[in-house]
């Protein structure tokens, strides 16, 4: 069992340099980063309705997982799911149209930021709710499509929900191909993990006899190498909890960050974006500007579209 981790307050610097990324990984990371930054700008200008939760600082989690998941796998995402969607489909236009309620929206503008369904990808906005559903999907996959898995993204705060434990119990009992990806960013909305979680994620997984794998690195290549054999075991019916110790760079939603400056500074110092720019400046700058321009183009194009249409009785 590991100790409680409070990454946002931990030592920030002195990590080893990040390894060089494949071009497509870097492009995807930057696409997600600039997508999220653009959203915050749009909100700031009052051009978006409702709310959103950006994954700034956590982009590398779905990017690292991307080649480990196949089209036959289900992915369940949560409120902070833009990166998960973009890593799966690369479809910035459809996602932004969904968030802006414009024509071409993935779900007609009904679901918005946190309720998206496309093929074998589904997100929903209630904490922990998707775990039992994913267990049911994993049960189906084990029986009808052996080798496929159900992956669920949750946060550290999600562990407050009983549904998590009901699902872990069933997943272990029934040997389900269930991969639980925990993005432990050290803070649940405004509450530090230490103030809402007794014990550890590892200890909770161990209580059910479920394997737990801790990822503290933000190095996509390194993470993948570590995860590959473990994910293969999930496909054989051995559920797994992968806990990423990560950093939420931005606010919970928008303009609601009450963390002390040192906590935000620690998150910034751990940010893969700045680190990669420093470790691989040429590679970074070759792709960063174009990614920024691409997302700007998407935003301009989608904003000009007519509103999405939907019939409540459809």
């Amino acid at each position: 069992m590991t100790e409680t981790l409070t990454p946002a307050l931990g030592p920030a610097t002195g990590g080893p340099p990040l390894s060089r990324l494949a071009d497509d990984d870097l492009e995807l990371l930057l696409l997600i980063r600039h997508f999220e930054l653009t959203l915050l700008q749009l909100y700031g200008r009052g051009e978006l309705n409702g709310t959103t939760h950006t994954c700034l600082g956590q982009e590398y989690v779905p990017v690292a997982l991307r080649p480990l998941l196949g089209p036959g796998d289900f992915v369940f995402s949560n409120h902070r799911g833009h990166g998960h969607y973009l890593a799966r489909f690369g479809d910035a236009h459809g996602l932004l149209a969904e968030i802006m309620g414009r024509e071409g929206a993935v779900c007609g503008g009904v679901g918005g930021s946190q309720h998206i369904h496309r093929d074998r990808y589904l997100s929903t906005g209630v904490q922990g709710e998707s775990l039992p559903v994913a267990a049911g999907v994993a049960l189906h996959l084990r029986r009808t499509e052996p080798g496929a898995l159900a992956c669920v993204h949750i946060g550290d705060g999600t562990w407050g929900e009983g549904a998590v434990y009901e699902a872990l119990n069933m997943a272990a009992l029934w040997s389900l191909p269930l991969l639980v990806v925990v993005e432990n960013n050290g803070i649940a909305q405004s509450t530090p993990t230490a103030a809402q979680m007794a014990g550890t994620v590892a200890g909770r997984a161990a209580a059910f006899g479920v394997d737990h794998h801790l990822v503290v690195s933000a190095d996509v290549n390194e993470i993948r190498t570590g995860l590959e054999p473990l994910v293969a075991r999930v496909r054989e019916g051995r559920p797994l909890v992968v806990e990423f110790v990560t950093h939420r760079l931005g606010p919970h939603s928008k303009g609601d960050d009450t963390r002390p400056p040192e906590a935000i500074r620690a998150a910034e110092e751990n940010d893969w974006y700045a680190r990669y720019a420093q470790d691989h400046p040429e590679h970074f700058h070759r792709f960063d500007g174009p990614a920024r321009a691409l997302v700007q183009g998407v935003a301009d194009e989608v904003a000009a579209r007519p509103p999405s249409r939907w019939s409540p009785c459809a």
Partner: protein
Amino acid sequence: MRVAENLNAALHGLLDDDPTAYVLGEDVLDPYGGAFKVTKGLSTRFPDRVITTPISEGGLTGVAAGLALTGNTAVAEIMFGDFAALAFDQLCNFAAKSVSMYGSRLPLRMIVRCPTGGGRGYGPTHSQSLQKHFVGMPGLALYEMSPFHDNRDVLAAMVDRGEPCLFFEDKVLYTRPMGQADPLFRARLDGGLAVVDPVVPELAARPDYVIVTPGGTAHRALEAMRSLLVEEEISGRLLVPSRLYPLDVEALLPHLGGVVLVAEEGTAGGTWGGEVAHLVHQRIWERLRGPVRLVHSAASVIPTAAHLEREVLLTASAIHHAVREALRG
């Protein structure tokens, strides 16, 4: 055949005919076969598709939703309908929403069975009729078991609906016979609506009043109808819809007269009957002699002791009394 046997046979039939059908719940395996024996024999015949679960109503309802999401037909049993409260999030925020919140219709074949109601001395948390708490949820349909509706047809209707359905099964019905028991009345089906009239054609043609009731209350309504007929020569008609919500009120209208009552076992306040009354008022207010009258259990917890439980729950005599009041105008 008793109602529980009819339902059991219907579940056997569903698993027989539909290779994607699953039944899951607590203690559903043989030799136990469920707390009310409704799943008896299923796990012996279909060991791969009858799954016993931990005591996790929210979790097992979510698993059922996951099975439905991947194209299966999922039947979940909540041991006591009271515990559907533990599955409220999965039903309201996941299953019901998923049918439409992703912009296009996402069909889910999912039935959640809820043994319901009092009269057996199980006390406040094992005797409730929670239908009213689920009324009005877009994407969630409510059905109730009845002695007049073959459960095979009802299961098929719920599956064909392609959205999550709650199936309320009044526990008192399990041991009662299917079909009509009272020789004074005859039941017939008009689509999903059971219409029960006096056997005597002249009485059937001109009912003095009409009672609308879910299946679990039907026998109490019939008891009241018998006493009204025999003791006071007042003749009535009983309407038992299989689907409570959304209610097909148009199907009721041809069978209604000037005096209409709704009888149900749920406790007072925010009742299903209130919804029925509103729908009827909207359509035939001018034809009614007075507002639709609601009869239900008291606004109370349901006590365990038999004499106390009787004071709270809807009785035949309360229905009898309400009919007389309504006719008096």
